[in-house]
């Protein structure tokens, strides 16, 4: 990596403090490390049922784009991942494997439980002989994302909550201390009709183009219809 012309101080104004008149820079190592960790989460692709479609595919595809939050490098191996997204139902046969996968991940490791099945067993909580009632019976969970399944927006909200949690942690002084798990539900007040309206607007803007109208306005091919 070559030297950048622009001083680092301009890039991280909140983390670095210059000493007046000198060439030294003071920084909080905690904040630097947390900043790096929070913005390069590598998720493990662990999808056991329908939430995996929403979280791994819909959230990762270009429309919603997980890469905006630096978490697009999904790894099939737990040894290269530091974020375990539990997307789906955990059954008794799967539980030891999930525990093994969690233990194989290198520290620091974070866990997001998405969907009702991973939180509490969901629709299988009663009269089920095999479904584990919540992934937190097996491994510690940091963030819960409710939904059945959660929309990609809700998953992003959970991811941002986790990033916030990581950034607030004290990595150097108290390594390995877990913060209290949080429930990352989308803030109240966002209604379905609002989301639908926004989606409709997005579709109209991006997916459907009225060719004739656009040509008359001169948006297409750069010339107006005579």
């Amino acid at each position, binding site marked *: 990596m070559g030297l950048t012309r622009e001083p680092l101080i301009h890039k991280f104004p909140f983390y670095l403090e210059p000493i007046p008149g000198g060439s030294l820079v003071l920084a909080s190592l905690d904040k630097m490390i947390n900043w790096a960790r929070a913005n390069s989460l590598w998720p493990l692709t662990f999808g056991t049922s329908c939430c995996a479609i929403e979280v791994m595919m819909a959230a990762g595809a270009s429309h919603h784009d997980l890469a905006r939050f630096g978490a697009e490098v999904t790894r099939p191996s737990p040894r290269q991942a530091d974020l375990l997204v539990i997307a789906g139902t955990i059954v008794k046969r799967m539980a030891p494997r999930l525990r093994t996968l969690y233990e194989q991940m290198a520290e620091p490791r974070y866990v997001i439980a998405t969907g009702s099945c991973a939180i509490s067993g969901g629709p299988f909580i009663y*009269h*089920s*002989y095999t479904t584990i009632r919540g992934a937190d019976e097996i491994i510690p969970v940091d963030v819960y994302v409710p939904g059945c399944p959660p929309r990609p927006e809700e998953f992003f909200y959970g991811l941002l909550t986790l990033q916030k949690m990581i950034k607030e942690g004290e990595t150097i002084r108290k390594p390995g201390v877990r913060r209290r798990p949080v429930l990352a539900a989308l803030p109240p007040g966002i209604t379905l009709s609002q989301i639908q309206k926004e989606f409709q607007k997005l579709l109209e803007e991006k997916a459907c183009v009225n060719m004739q109208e656009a040509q008359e306005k001169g948006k297409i091919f750069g010339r107006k219809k005579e």
Partner: protein
Amino acid sequence: METQTLLEKLTALEPTVMPREKSDCPAITISPELLLGFMKKLKAEPSLAFNILCTHTAIDWIAENRFELIYQLYSLEHAHSLRVSTSVPRDNPLLSSMSSIWRIAQWQEREVYDLFGVLYHGHPDLRRLFLEDDWKGFPLRKDYQDDFMLEKPEWA
């Protein structure tokens, strides 16, 4: 083949066969003793030629004290399908295995054994398929009870 002609042909093959009413596809009922010989005929007979066993499953009729076992057959040659069902008593669920006719039946019978506890005579390797080997009981039976299971409370 038309449903009516198919059913007539089957009754000619085995007179004790009962066609089922109220069915969306050709369906028959047969006694469990005759099942193996009848299924062999179904595959060997050139005009029937049921060469695929699509599904094998069971239903627990606890009030009538019987397991109903369903075989869904299909013929690639003639493109017709047939549903064969038979019943075994609940306290002695013993049946001959179809694995000598269709090899896929080995897996499907293991699944039915795993979840319902139906025993198959002549199956080469009757073990549990999905559940742990030391599992006790057969969970899809209606009277199955377990320490792990939660009863639904009244307020839920």
